[in-house]
Protein backbone atom coordinates (compact mmCIF):
# COMPACT_ATOMS: atom_id res chain seq x y z
CA UNK A 1 0.00 0.00 0.00
CA UNK A 2 0.99 3.61 -0.43
CA UNK A 3 3.14 5.63 1.91
CA UNK A 4 2.49 9.24 2.76
CA UNK A 5 5.08 11.85 1.80
CA UNK A 6 5.43 15.16 3.59
CA UNK A 7 3.40 16.88 0.88
CA UNK A 8 0.84 14.07 1.13
CA UNK A 9 0.45 14.76 4.84
CA UNK A 10 0.01 18.46 4.07
CA UNK A 11 -2.63 17.63 1.46
CA UNK A 12 -4.59 15.41 3.88
CA UNK A 13 -4.40 18.12 6.56
CA UNK A 14 -5.83 20.56 4.06
CA UNK A 15 -8.66 18.17 3.16
CA UNK A 16 -9.38 17.69 6.88
CA UNK A 17 -9.25 21.46 7.46
CA UNK A 18 -6.71 21.12 10.27
CA UNK A 19 -3.94 23.70 10.55
CA UNK A 20 -0.72 21.98 11.58
CA UNK A 21 2.65 23.35 12.65
CA UNK A 22 5.86 22.16 10.96
CA UNK A 23 6.66 20.13 14.04
CA UNK A 24 3.24 18.45 13.94
CA UNK A 25 3.61 17.70 10.23
CA UNK A 26 6.97 16.04 10.83
CA UNK A 27 5.67 13.95 13.73
CA UNK A 28 2.50 12.95 11.87
CA UNK A 29 4.42 11.89 8.79
CA UNK A 30 6.26 9.28 10.87
CA UNK A 31 3.27 8.21 12.92
CA UNK A 32 0.80 7.96 10.05
CA UNK A 33 3.21 5.88 7.97
CA UNK A 34 3.77 3.56 10.94
CA UNK A 35 -0.01 3.10 11.22
CA UNK A 36 -0.38 2.61 7.45
CA UNK A 37 2.19 -0.21 7.70
CA UNK A 38 -0.21 -1.98 10.08
CA UNK A 39 -2.88 -1.84 7.36
CA UNK A 40 -0.71 -3.94 5.03
CA UNK A 41 -1.86 -7.16 6.69
CA UNK A 42 -5.22 -6.63 4.97
CA UNK A 43 -3.83 -6.72 1.44
CA UNK A 44 -2.94 -10.40 1.86
CA UNK A 45 -6.53 -11.36 2.58
CA UNK A 46 -8.63 -12.18 -0.51
CA UNK A 47 -11.97 -10.34 -0.35
CA UNK A 48 -13.07 -10.08 -4.00
CA UNK A 49 -16.30 -12.01 -3.42
CA UNK A 50 -17.03 -10.63 0.05
CA UNK A 51 -19.77 -7.99 0.37
CA UNK A 52 -18.92 -4.97 2.56
CA UNK A 53 -20.51 -4.52 5.98
CA UNK A 54 -21.47 -0.95 6.82
CA UNK A 55 -23.64 -1.72 9.83
CA UNK A 56 -24.52 -4.75 11.90
CA UNK A 57 -28.22 -4.60 12.68
CA UNK A 58 -30.98 -5.44 10.27
CA UNK A 59 -32.89 -2.18 10.38
CA UNK A 60 -33.87 -0.56 7.10
CA UNK A 61 -35.94 2.41 6.03
CA UNK A 62 -36.71 3.66 9.50
CA UNK A 63 -39.52 6.20 9.23
CA UNK A 64 -41.32 8.33 11.75
CA UNK A 65 -44.37 10.56 11.56
CA UNK A 66 -43.68 14.09 10.38
CA UNK A 67 -44.96 15.96 13.42
CA UNK A 68 -44.36 19.66 14.01
CA UNK A 69 -42.47 20.12 17.26
CA UNK A 70 -40.96 23.17 18.94
CA UNK A 71 -37.31 23.77 18.08
CA UNK A 72 -34.69 24.44 20.74
CA UNK A 73 -35.07 27.82 22.46
CA UNK A 74 -33.30 30.45 20.35
CA UNK A 75 -31.41 31.97 23.29
CA UNK A 76 -29.94 28.57 24.29
CA UNK A 77 -28.66 27.97 20.76
CA UNK A 78 -27.38 31.50 20.16
CA UNK A 79 -25.78 31.51 23.60
CA UNK A 80 -23.26 28.94 22.32
CA UNK A 81 -22.33 30.86 19.16
CA UNK A 82 -19.21 33.05 19.19
CA UNK A 83 -21.13 35.87 17.47
CA UNK A 84 -24.76 36.53 16.57
CA UNK A 85 -26.81 39.32 15.13
CA UNK A 86 -30.42 39.19 16.27
CA UNK A 87 -31.66 35.70 15.54
CA UNK A 88 -28.76 34.92 13.18
CA UNK A 89 -25.36 33.37 13.79
CA UNK A 90 -22.61 35.52 12.27
CA UNK A 91 -20.29 33.58 9.96
CA UNK A 92 -17.41 34.72 7.76
CA UNK A 93 -18.30 35.71 4.18
CA UNK A 94 -17.78 32.85 1.73
CA UNK A 95 -18.06 35.01 -1.42
CA UNK A 96 -15.83 37.94 -2.28
CA UNK A 97 -18.57 40.48 -2.91
CA UNK A 98 -21.13 41.21 -0.18
Amino acid at each position, binding site marked *: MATLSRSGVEHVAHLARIGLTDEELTRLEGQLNHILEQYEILSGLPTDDIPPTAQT*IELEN*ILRDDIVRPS*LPLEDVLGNAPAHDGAFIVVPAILDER
Partner: protein
Amino acid sequence: MTDLTRLRAHEMAALLRSGESSSRELTEAHLAAAERDNRALNAWLTIDRERALGEADAADARLGAARGGGSAALDRLRPLLGIPVALKDLVSLKGGQCTAGSRILEGYRAPYDAHITERLRDAGAVILGKTNMDEFAMGSSTEHSAFGPTANPWALDRVPGGSSGGSAAVVAAYHAPLSIGTDTGGSIRQPAALCGIVGMKPTYGRVSRYGIVAFASSLDQIGPLARDARDAAALLHVIAGRDERDSTSSPEPVPAALTALPASDDAAAANLRGKRLGLPREYFVAGMEPGVEARVREAVAAIEAAGATVEEVSLPHTDYGLATYYIVAPAEASANLARYDGLRYGPHHAEGDVLANYLATRGRGFGPEVKRRVMLGTYALSAGYYDAYYLKAQKVRTLIKADFDALWAQGFDALVAPTSPSVAFRFGARLADPVAMYLSDACTLPVNMAGLPAISVPCGLSEGLPVGLQFIGAPWSEAELFGLARGYEAITASADWRSLEPTELALAADPATQAPAERVRALTIA
Protein backbone atom coordinates in the same frame (compact mmCIF):
# COMPACT_ATOMS: atom_id res chain seq x y z
CA MET B 1 -21.96 3.70 60.98
CA THR B 2 -21.41 1.99 57.64
CA ASP B 3 -19.86 4.08 54.91
CA LEU B 4 -22.74 4.53 52.51
CA THR B 5 -20.43 4.87 49.52
CA ARG B 6 -19.19 1.26 49.93
CA LEU B 7 -22.66 -0.18 49.23
CA ARG B 8 -23.96 -1.46 45.91
CA ALA B 9 -26.79 0.49 44.30
CA HIS B 10 -29.33 -2.23 45.09
CA GLU B 11 -28.28 -2.12 48.77
CA MET B 12 -28.64 1.69 48.75
CA ALA B 13 -32.12 1.30 47.25
CA ALA B 14 -33.15 -0.99 50.14
CA LEU B 15 -31.99 1.60 52.71
CA LEU B 16 -33.92 4.33 50.91
CA ARG B 17 -37.10 2.26 50.90
CA SER B 18 -36.86 1.35 54.59
CA GLY B 19 -36.13 4.96 55.51
CA GLU B 20 -32.80 4.03 57.15
CA SER B 21 -31.09 6.47 54.83
CA SER B 22 -32.12 9.27 52.49
CA SER B 23 -31.05 10.17 49.00
CA ARG B 24 -29.68 13.43 50.40
CA GLU B 25 -27.44 11.49 52.81
CA LEU B 26 -26.29 9.19 50.03
CA THR B 27 -25.66 12.08 47.67
CA GLU B 28 -23.80 14.13 50.31
CA ALA B 29 -21.57 11.14 51.10
CA HIS B 30 -20.68 10.59 47.43
CA LEU B 31 -20.15 14.29 46.72
CA ALA B 32 -17.83 14.56 49.72
CA ALA B 33 -15.76 11.60 48.48
CA ALA B 34 -15.64 12.98 44.94
CA GLU B 35 -14.65 16.49 46.05
CA ARG B 36 -12.02 15.13 48.44
CA ASP B 37 -10.30 12.79 45.95
CA ASN B 38 -10.65 14.62 42.67
CA ARG B 39 -7.41 16.55 42.93
CA ALA B 40 -5.49 13.27 43.04
CA LEU B 41 -7.65 11.36 40.55
CA ASN B 42 -8.87 14.05 38.11
CA ALA B 43 -11.75 11.70 37.31
CA TRP B 44 -14.47 14.37 37.31
CA LEU B 45 -14.61 17.29 34.90
CA THR B 46 -17.63 18.74 36.71
CA ILE B 47 -19.22 17.96 40.05
CA ASP B 48 -22.63 19.62 40.30
CA ARG B 49 -23.41 19.70 44.01
CA GLU B 50 -26.47 21.93 43.88
CA ARG B 51 -28.16 20.14 41.03
CA ALA B 52 -27.46 16.76 42.62
CA LEU B 53 -28.83 17.75 46.02
CA GLY B 54 -31.94 19.17 44.38
CA GLU B 55 -32.52 15.87 42.58
CA ALA B 56 -31.86 13.99 45.84
CA ASP B 57 -34.47 16.05 47.69
CA ALA B 58 -36.99 15.39 44.93
CA ALA B 59 -36.26 11.66 45.22
CA ASP B 60 -36.65 11.82 49.01
CA ALA B 61 -40.07 13.45 48.61
CA ARG B 62 -41.19 10.61 46.34
CA LEU B 63 -39.75 8.02 48.73
CA GLY B 64 -41.50 9.62 51.69
CA ALA B 65 -44.84 9.67 49.89
CA ALA B 66 -44.42 6.02 48.87
CA ARG B 67 -43.58 4.96 52.43
CA GLY B 68 -46.85 6.59 53.51
CA GLY B 69 -48.64 4.50 50.88
CA GLY B 70 -47.42 1.15 52.20
CA SER B 71 -45.58 -1.73 50.55
CA ALA B 72 -47.55 -1.63 47.30
CA ALA B 73 -46.49 1.99 46.75
CA LEU B 74 -42.86 1.14 47.61
CA ASP B 75 -42.89 -1.77 45.16
CA ARG B 76 -43.89 0.59 42.36
CA LEU B 77 -40.79 2.78 42.85
CA ARG B 78 -38.12 2.53 40.17
CA PRO B 79 -34.87 0.78 41.24
CA LEU B 80 -32.60 3.80 40.65
CA LEU B 81 -34.77 6.34 42.50
CA GLY B 82 -32.45 8.50 44.62
CA ILE B 83 -29.27 6.62 43.53
CA PRO B 84 -26.20 8.67 42.47
CA VAL B 85 -24.95 8.25 38.88
CA ALA B 86 -22.01 9.76 36.94
CA LEU B 87 -22.13 10.65 33.23
CA LYS B 88 -19.22 10.55 30.82
CA ASP B 89 -18.66 14.11 29.59
CA LEU B 90 -20.05 13.37 26.14
CA VAL B 91 -23.63 12.86 27.35
CA SER B 92 -25.76 15.98 27.00
CA LEU B 93 -27.20 17.32 30.24
CA LYS B 94 -29.27 20.43 29.58
CA GLY B 95 -27.45 23.59 30.67
CA GLY B 96 -24.28 21.74 31.61
CA GLN B 97 -20.90 21.57 29.89
CA CYS B 98 -20.27 18.73 27.46
CA THR B 99 -16.63 18.84 26.42
CA ALA B 100 -16.07 15.27 25.19
CA GLY B 101 -12.61 15.85 26.66
CA SER B 102 -11.82 18.43 23.97
CA ARG B 103 -10.80 22.09 23.91
CA ILE B 104 -12.94 22.51 20.83
CA LEU B 105 -16.08 22.14 22.98
CA GLU B 106 -14.82 24.26 25.87
CA GLY B 107 -17.55 26.62 27.04
CA TYR B 108 -20.28 24.81 25.11
CA ARG B 109 -23.49 24.32 27.13
CA ALA B 110 -25.81 21.52 26.02
CA PRO B 111 -29.16 23.06 25.04
CA TYR B 112 -31.04 19.79 25.62
CA ASP B 113 -30.89 16.45 27.47
CA ALA B 114 -29.65 13.27 25.79
CA HIS B 115 -32.21 10.48 25.56
CA ILE B 116 -30.44 8.54 28.30
CA THR B 117 -30.34 11.65 30.50
CA GLU B 118 -34.13 11.90 30.15
CA ARG B 119 -34.42 8.20 31.02
CA LEU B 120 -32.23 8.64 34.12
CA ARG B 121 -34.27 11.65 35.24
CA ASP B 122 -37.53 9.73 34.74
CA ALA B 123 -36.09 6.92 36.86
CA GLY B 124 -35.26 9.44 39.62
CA ALA B 125 -31.50 8.89 39.53
CA VAL B 126 -29.29 11.65 40.98
CA ILE B 127 -26.71 12.91 38.47
CA LEU B 128 -23.57 13.93 40.36
CA GLY B 129 -21.57 15.31 37.45
CA LYS B 130 -19.55 14.54 34.34
CA THR B 131 -16.44 12.37 34.07
CA ASN B 132 -13.11 12.72 32.31
CA MET B 133 -12.39 10.88 29.06
CA ASP B 134 -10.01 10.62 26.14
CA GLU B 135 -10.77 13.41 23.70
CA PHE B 136 -13.81 12.41 21.59
CA ALA B 137 -13.46 8.93 23.16
CA MET B 138 -10.28 8.28 21.14
CA GLY B 139 -7.87 6.47 23.39
CA SER B 140 -7.32 3.65 25.85
CA SER B 141 -5.82 5.51 28.81
CA THR B 142 -7.67 8.84 29.35
CA GLU B 143 -4.26 10.48 28.76
CA HIS B 144 -5.71 12.04 25.60
CA SER B 145 -8.10 14.26 27.58
CA ALA B 146 -7.49 17.96 26.96
CA PHE B 147 -8.13 18.44 30.68
CA GLY B 148 -5.33 16.20 31.97
CA PRO B 149 -5.15 12.47 32.60
CA THR B 150 -7.15 10.53 35.20
CA ALA B 151 -5.33 8.35 37.74
CA ASN B 152 -6.23 4.74 38.53
CA PRO B 153 -7.39 4.41 42.16
CA TRP B 154 -5.43 1.14 42.39
CA ALA B 155 -2.14 2.88 41.54
CA LEU B 156 -2.02 6.64 41.16
CA ASP B 157 0.91 6.55 38.70
CA ARG B 158 -1.07 4.34 36.31
CA VAL B 159 -3.87 4.94 33.82
CA PRO B 160 -7.48 3.89 34.48
CA GLY B 161 -7.85 2.75 30.87
CA GLY B 162 -10.03 4.59 28.41
CA SER B 163 -11.73 6.18 26.90
CA SER B 164 -14.32 5.99 29.73
CA GLY B 165 -11.49 6.19 32.29
CA GLY B 166 -13.19 8.80 34.47
CA SER B 167 -16.42 6.82 34.59
CA ALA B 168 -14.51 3.67 35.63
CA ALA B 169 -12.34 5.47 38.20
CA VAL B 170 -15.26 7.16 39.99
CA VAL B 171 -17.06 3.84 40.44
CA ALA B 172 -13.88 2.06 41.60
CA ALA B 173 -13.10 4.92 44.02
CA TYR B 174 -16.63 4.85 45.53
CA HIS B 175 -17.63 8.29 44.26
CA ALA B 176 -20.69 6.77 42.61
CA PRO B 177 -22.13 3.25 42.50
CA LEU B 178 -23.04 3.64 38.83
CA SER B 179 -21.76 5.46 35.78
CA ILE B 180 -22.38 5.79 32.07
CA GLY B 181 -19.69 5.13 29.48
CA THR B 182 -19.49 4.67 25.73
CA ASP B 183 -17.67 1.89 23.88
CA THR B 184 -16.48 2.15 20.27
CA GLY B 185 -13.58 -0.32 20.46
CA GLY B 186 -13.44 -1.24 24.14
CA SER B 187 -13.93 2.10 25.90
CA ILE B 188 -16.27 0.70 28.59
CA ARG B 189 -14.85 -2.81 29.00
CA GLN B 190 -11.11 -2.02 29.04
CA PRO B 191 -11.30 0.72 31.75
CA ALA B 192 -13.72 -1.48 33.74
CA ALA B 193 -11.09 -4.24 33.59
CA LEU B 194 -8.22 -1.92 34.55
CA CYS B 195 -10.18 -0.44 37.49
CA GLY B 196 -11.58 -3.75 38.78
CA ILE B 197 -15.28 -3.13 38.11
CA VAL B 198 -18.08 -4.36 35.82
CA GLY B 199 -18.70 -2.71 32.44
CA MET B 200 -20.99 -3.70 29.60
CA LYS B 201 -21.07 -2.73 25.95
CA PRO B 202 -24.58 -3.62 24.77
CA THR B 203 -25.57 -4.77 21.28
CA TYR B 204 -25.23 -2.05 18.63
CA GLY B 205 -28.64 -0.35 18.58
CA ARG B 206 -29.66 -1.31 22.13
CA VAL B 207 -29.38 2.22 23.57
CA SER B 208 -30.36 5.47 21.82
CA ARG B 209 -27.43 7.77 21.10
CA TYR B 210 -29.54 10.91 20.79
CA GLY B 211 -27.62 13.67 22.57
CA ILE B 212 -24.30 11.80 22.72
CA VAL B 213 -21.20 13.24 21.03
CA ALA B 214 -20.50 10.89 18.09
CA PHE B 215 -17.14 9.23 17.38
CA ALA B 216 -17.68 6.33 14.92
CA SER B 217 -21.35 5.91 14.19
CA SER B 218 -21.39 2.27 13.06
CA LEU B 219 -19.55 1.23 16.25
CA ASP B 220 -20.46 3.59 19.14
CA GLN B 221 -22.68 2.21 21.87
CA ILE B 222 -23.60 3.46 25.36
CA GLY B 223 -23.44 1.22 28.40
CA PRO B 224 -23.29 0.91 32.18
CA LEU B 225 -20.38 0.63 34.64
CA ALA B 226 -20.95 -0.58 38.21
CA ARG B 227 -19.36 -2.58 41.01
CA ASP B 228 -21.48 -5.67 40.35
CA ALA B 229 -23.54 -7.33 37.65
CA ARG B 230 -26.94 -6.65 39.24
CA ASP B 231 -26.32 -2.91 39.44
CA ALA B 232 -25.00 -2.71 35.88
CA ALA B 233 -27.99 -4.67 34.58
CA ALA B 234 -30.44 -2.39 36.41
CA LEU B 235 -28.79 0.67 34.87
CA LEU B 236 -28.90 -0.85 31.37
CA HIS B 237 -32.59 -1.61 31.87
CA VAL B 238 -33.25 2.10 32.51
CA ILE B 239 -31.37 3.41 29.45
CA ALA B 240 -32.11 0.68 26.85
CA GLY B 241 -34.81 0.68 24.20
CA ARG B 242 -36.11 2.31 21.07
CA ASP B 243 -36.07 6.08 20.70
CA GLU B 244 -37.29 7.51 17.42
CA ARG B 245 -34.73 10.33 17.57
CA ASP B 246 -31.97 7.75 16.94
CA SER B 247 -32.98 5.78 13.87
CA THR B 248 -30.29 3.16 14.67
CA SER B 249 -31.88 2.36 18.04
CA SER B 250 -33.65 -0.97 17.81
CA PRO B 251 -37.28 -1.87 18.57
CA GLU B 252 -35.99 -5.15 20.07
CA PRO B 253 -37.79 -5.57 23.45
CA VAL B 254 -35.70 -4.82 26.54
CA PRO B 255 -35.62 -7.99 28.67
CA ALA B 256 -37.27 -7.71 32.08
CA ALA B 257 -34.69 -10.25 33.26
CA LEU B 258 -32.22 -7.35 33.53
CA THR B 259 -33.93 -6.32 36.78
CA ALA B 260 -34.32 -9.87 38.08
CA LEU B 261 -30.79 -11.27 38.36
CA PRO B 262 -30.64 -13.71 41.27
CA ALA B 263 -29.74 -12.22 44.66
CA SER B 264 -28.74 -15.58 46.07
CA ASP B 265 -25.31 -16.93 45.12
CA ASP B 266 -26.65 -20.49 44.87
CA ALA B 267 -29.29 -19.51 42.33
CA ALA B 268 -26.76 -17.40 40.41
CA ALA B 269 -24.17 -20.19 40.31
CA ALA B 270 -26.79 -22.67 39.08
CA ASN B 271 -27.13 -20.52 35.99
CA LEU B 272 -23.65 -21.62 34.85
CA ARG B 273 -24.61 -25.31 34.82
CA GLY B 274 -24.97 -26.75 31.33
CA LYS B 275 -23.81 -23.59 29.55
CA ARG B 276 -21.64 -24.10 26.48
CA LEU B 277 -18.93 -21.47 26.20
CA GLY B 278 -16.23 -20.93 23.58
CA LEU B 279 -12.71 -19.82 24.46
CA PRO B 280 -11.27 -18.07 21.39
CA ARG B 281 -7.61 -19.04 21.12
CA GLU B 282 -6.70 -15.91 19.12
CA TYR B 283 -7.61 -13.70 22.11
CA PHE B 284 -4.54 -14.87 24.00
CA VAL B 285 -2.59 -12.44 21.88
CA ALA B 286 1.16 -12.17 21.56
CA GLY B 287 2.45 -9.86 24.26
CA MET B 288 -0.33 -10.71 26.72
CA GLU B 289 0.96 -10.43 30.28
CA PRO B 290 1.42 -13.87 31.87
CA GLY B 291 -0.41 -12.76 35.02
CA VAL B 292 -3.43 -11.73 32.97
CA GLU B 293 -3.48 -15.03 31.08
CA ALA B 294 -3.15 -16.95 34.37
CA ARG B 295 -6.12 -15.17 35.98
CA VAL B 296 -8.29 -15.67 32.90
CA ARG B 297 -7.43 -19.39 32.68
CA GLU B 298 -8.19 -19.79 36.42
CA ALA B 299 -11.54 -18.08 35.90
CA VAL B 300 -12.31 -20.43 33.00
CA ALA B 301 -11.44 -23.43 35.20
CA ALA B 302 -13.77 -22.14 37.93
CA ILE B 303 -16.59 -21.72 35.42
CA GLU B 304 -16.04 -25.30 34.19
CA ALA B 305 -16.01 -26.57 37.77
CA ALA B 306 -19.40 -24.90 38.24
CA GLY B 307 -20.87 -27.07 35.50
CA ALA B 308 -20.33 -25.16 32.26
CA THR B 309 -18.45 -26.68 29.33
CA VAL B 310 -15.72 -24.55 27.82
CA GLU B 311 -14.32 -25.50 24.41
CA GLU B 312 -11.41 -23.86 22.66
CA VAL B 313 -12.69 -22.19 19.48
CA SER B 314 -11.22 -20.12 16.67
CA LEU B 315 -12.13 -16.65 15.42
CA PRO B 316 -9.74 -16.87 12.46
CA HIS B 317 -9.92 -13.22 11.37
CA THR B 318 -9.09 -11.75 14.78
CA ASP B 319 -5.61 -10.72 13.64
CA TYR B 320 -7.17 -8.47 11.02
CA GLY B 321 -9.33 -6.70 13.61
CA LEU B 322 -6.90 -3.97 14.61
CA ALA B 323 -6.15 -2.80 11.06
CA THR B 324 -9.83 -2.99 10.09
CA TYR B 325 -10.92 -1.03 13.13
CA TYR B 326 -8.25 1.63 12.61
CA ILE B 327 -9.59 2.25 9.12
CA VAL B 328 -13.34 2.14 9.83
CA ALA B 329 -13.34 4.12 13.08
CA PRO B 330 -11.11 7.00 11.92
CA ALA B 331 -12.99 7.21 8.61
CA GLU B 332 -16.30 7.62 10.42
CA ALA B 333 -14.70 9.98 12.93
CA SER B 334 -13.34 12.22 10.18
CA ALA B 335 -16.90 12.64 8.90
CA ASN B 336 -18.47 13.13 12.35
CA LEU B 337 -15.85 15.63 13.47
CA ALA B 338 -16.25 17.77 10.34
CA ARG B 339 -19.01 19.61 12.23
CA TYR B 340 -16.52 21.29 14.60
CA ASP B 341 -16.03 24.50 12.67
CA GLY B 342 -16.16 26.99 15.55
CA LEU B 343 -19.08 28.87 14.03
CA ARG B 344 -22.08 27.67 16.03
CA TYR B 345 -20.39 26.69 19.33
CA GLY B 346 -17.00 26.27 20.90
CA PRO B 347 -13.91 28.49 20.67
CA HIS B 348 -13.53 30.29 17.35
CA HIS B 349 -10.22 31.56 15.99
CA ALA B 350 -10.71 34.28 13.39
CA GLU B 351 -7.57 34.41 11.24
CA GLY B 352 -8.81 35.83 7.96
CA ASP B 353 -10.94 34.05 5.38
CA VAL B 354 -13.19 31.06 5.94
CA LEU B 355 -10.47 28.52 5.24
CA ALA B 356 -7.98 30.23 7.56
CA ASN B 357 -10.64 30.27 10.31
CA TYR B 358 -11.25 26.54 9.95
CA LEU B 359 -7.55 25.69 9.95
CA ALA B 360 -6.92 27.80 13.07
CA THR B 361 -10.04 26.70 14.97
CA ARG B 362 -9.52 22.99 14.28
CA GLY B 363 -5.72 23.13 14.49
CA ARG B 364 -5.86 24.63 17.98
CA GLY B 365 -9.06 22.93 19.15
CA PHE B 366 -8.16 19.28 18.47
CA GLY B 367 -5.51 17.38 20.42
CA PRO B 368 -2.82 15.12 18.90
CA GLU B 369 -4.77 11.83 18.90
CA VAL B 370 -7.86 13.40 17.34
CA LYS B 371 -5.72 15.03 14.66
CA ARG B 372 -4.08 11.68 13.93
CA ARG B 373 -7.39 9.89 13.57
CA VAL B 374 -9.11 12.57 11.54
CA MET B 375 -6.07 12.58 9.24
CA LEU B 376 -6.11 8.78 8.92
CA GLY B 377 -9.83 8.77 8.21
CA THR B 378 -9.61 11.59 5.72
CA TYR B 379 -6.80 9.75 3.92
CA ALA B 380 -8.67 6.40 3.92
CA LEU B 381 -11.72 8.08 2.35
CA SER B 382 -9.83 10.29 -0.10
CA ALA B 383 -9.93 9.91 -3.86
CA GLY B 384 -7.87 6.94 -5.05
CA TYR B 385 -7.61 5.28 -1.63
CA TYR B 386 -11.25 4.56 -0.79
CA ASP B 387 -11.24 1.06 -2.36
CA ALA B 388 -7.85 0.12 -0.97
CA TYR B 389 -8.67 1.14 2.59
CA TYR B 390 -12.28 1.83 3.52
CA LEU B 391 -14.02 -0.61 1.17
CA LYS B 392 -11.41 -3.28 1.93
CA ALA B 393 -11.93 -2.78 5.67
CA GLN B 394 -15.71 -3.07 5.30
CA LYS B 395 -15.23 -6.39 3.49
CA VAL B 396 -12.93 -7.69 6.20
CA ARG B 397 -15.52 -6.54 8.71
CA THR B 398 -17.93 -8.99 7.05
CA LEU B 399 -15.42 -11.80 7.67
CA ILE B 400 -14.88 -10.79 11.31
CA LYS B 401 -18.62 -10.80 11.92
CA ALA B 402 -18.98 -14.15 10.12
CA ASP B 403 -16.44 -15.71 12.51
CA PHE B 404 -18.76 -14.95 15.42
CA ASP B 405 -21.92 -15.91 13.51
CA ALA B 406 -20.43 -19.36 12.81
CA LEU B 407 -20.03 -19.97 16.55
CA TRP B 408 -23.57 -18.88 17.36
CA ALA B 409 -24.77 -21.25 14.62
CA GLN B 410 -22.87 -24.07 16.37
CA GLY B 411 -24.90 -23.45 19.51
CA PHE B 412 -22.44 -21.68 21.78
CA ASP B 413 -24.20 -19.69 24.52
CA ALA B 414 -21.36 -17.16 24.75
CA LEU B 415 -17.60 -16.75 24.48
CA VAL B 416 -15.25 -16.17 27.39
CA ALA B 417 -12.00 -14.26 26.87
CA PRO B 418 -9.61 -11.75 28.39
CA THR B 419 -10.77 -8.12 28.25
CA SER B 420 -7.35 -6.46 28.04
CA PRO B 421 -3.95 -8.04 27.32
CA SER B 422 -2.43 -6.11 30.23
CA VAL B 423 -3.20 -4.64 33.62
CA ALA B 424 -3.19 -0.86 34.07
CA PHE B 425 -0.02 0.60 32.58
CA ARG B 426 2.02 3.57 33.76
CA PHE B 427 1.39 7.10 32.59
CA GLY B 428 3.32 7.74 29.41
CA ALA B 429 4.10 4.08 28.69
CA ARG B 430 2.17 3.97 25.40
CA LEU B 431 1.81 7.65 24.53
CA ALA B 432 4.83 7.88 22.24
CA ASP B 433 3.74 4.91 20.10
CA PRO B 434 0.12 5.10 18.88
CA VAL B 435 0.22 1.49 17.65
CA ALA B 436 1.18 0.23 21.14
CA MET B 437 -1.81 2.15 22.54
CA TYR B 438 -4.10 0.69 19.86
CA LEU B 439 -3.06 -2.87 20.86
CA SER B 440 -4.72 -2.24 24.26
CA ASP B 441 -8.03 -2.93 22.52
CA ALA B 442 -7.06 -6.07 20.55
CA CYS B 443 -9.50 -8.25 22.56
CA THR B 444 -12.38 -5.79 22.61
CA LEU B 445 -12.60 -4.11 19.21
CA PRO B 446 -13.66 -7.17 17.14
CA VAL B 447 -16.83 -7.20 19.27
CA ASN B 448 -17.68 -3.67 18.12
CA MET B 449 -16.91 -4.59 14.52
CA ALA B 450 -19.52 -7.36 14.82
CA GLY B 451 -22.01 -5.21 16.79
CA LEU B 452 -22.20 -7.74 19.64
CA PRO B 453 -22.83 -7.28 23.37
CA ALA B 454 -20.00 -8.05 25.81
CA ILE B 455 -19.33 -7.57 29.50
CA SER B 456 -16.11 -7.29 31.49
CA VAL B 457 -16.07 -8.50 35.09
CA PRO B 458 -13.18 -8.48 37.58
CA CYS B 459 -11.44 -11.90 37.90
CA GLY B 460 -8.59 -11.24 40.32
CA LEU B 461 -5.31 -9.37 40.46
CA SER B 462 -1.97 -9.59 38.69
CA GLU B 463 0.92 -7.70 40.27
CA GLY B 464 -1.64 -6.16 42.63
CA LEU B 465 -3.72 -4.72 39.78
CA PRO B 466 -7.16 -5.80 38.51
CA VAL B 467 -7.67 -8.22 35.61
CA GLY B 468 -10.88 -8.35 33.56
CA LEU B 469 -12.73 -11.37 32.17
CA GLN B 470 -14.91 -10.81 29.13
CA PHE B 471 -18.12 -12.62 28.15
CA ILE B 472 -19.18 -12.03 24.54
CA GLY B 473 -22.68 -12.92 23.34
CA ALA B 474 -24.90 -13.12 20.29
CA PRO B 475 -26.91 -9.99 19.40
CA TRP B 476 -29.50 -9.01 22.04
CA SER B 477 -28.20 -11.54 24.60
CA GLU B 478 -27.41 -8.95 27.31
CA ALA B 479 -29.59 -10.68 29.91
CA GLU B 480 -27.78 -13.99 29.30
CA LEU B 481 -24.38 -12.26 29.60
CA PHE B 482 -25.42 -10.67 32.87
CA GLY B 483 -26.55 -14.13 34.03
CA LEU B 484 -23.06 -15.49 33.29
CA ALA B 485 -21.40 -12.49 34.94
CA ARG B 486 -23.60 -12.86 38.01
CA GLY B 487 -22.86 -16.61 38.07
CA TYR B 488 -19.13 -15.95 37.97
CA GLU B 489 -19.50 -13.42 40.79
CA ALA B 490 -21.36 -16.04 42.82
CA ILE B 491 -18.77 -18.80 42.43
CA THR B 492 -15.95 -16.39 43.36
CA ALA B 493 -17.87 -14.56 46.11
CA SER B 494 -15.52 -15.83 48.81
CA ALA B 495 -12.28 -15.41 46.83
CA ASP B 496 -9.65 -13.40 48.72
CA TRP B 497 -9.35 -10.74 46.03
CA ARG B 498 -13.09 -9.94 46.23
CA SER B 499 -12.55 -8.33 49.64
CA LEU B 500 -9.77 -6.03 48.37
CA GLU B 501 -10.50 -2.48 47.45
CA PRO B 502 -8.39 -0.05 45.41
CA THR B 503 -5.10 0.21 47.23
CA GLU B 504 -4.48 3.94 46.91
CA LEU B 505 -7.77 5.39 48.15
CA ALA B 506 -6.12 6.82 51.26
CA LEU B 507 -3.42 8.43 49.16
CA ALA B 508 -6.08 9.81 46.81
CA ALA B 509 -7.84 11.39 49.78
CA ASP B 510 -4.63 13.06 51.03
CA PRO B 511 -4.69 16.73 49.98
CA ALA B 512 -0.88 16.67 49.63
CA THR B 513 -1.01 14.04 46.87
CA GLN B 514 0.01 15.27 43.44
CA ALA B 515 -2.57 15.70 40.71
CA PRO B 516 -2.07 13.32 37.73
CA ALA B 517 -0.89 16.14 35.45
CA GLU B 518 1.84 17.05 37.96
CA ARG B 519 2.88 13.40 38.23
CA VAL B 520 3.11 13.14 34.45
CA ARG B 521 5.25 16.30 34.27
CA ALA B 522 7.56 14.87 36.93
CA LEU B 523 7.87 11.66 34.86
CA THR B 524 8.67 13.59 31.70
CA ILE B 525 11.41 15.58 33.41
CA ALA B 526 12.92 12.45 35.01
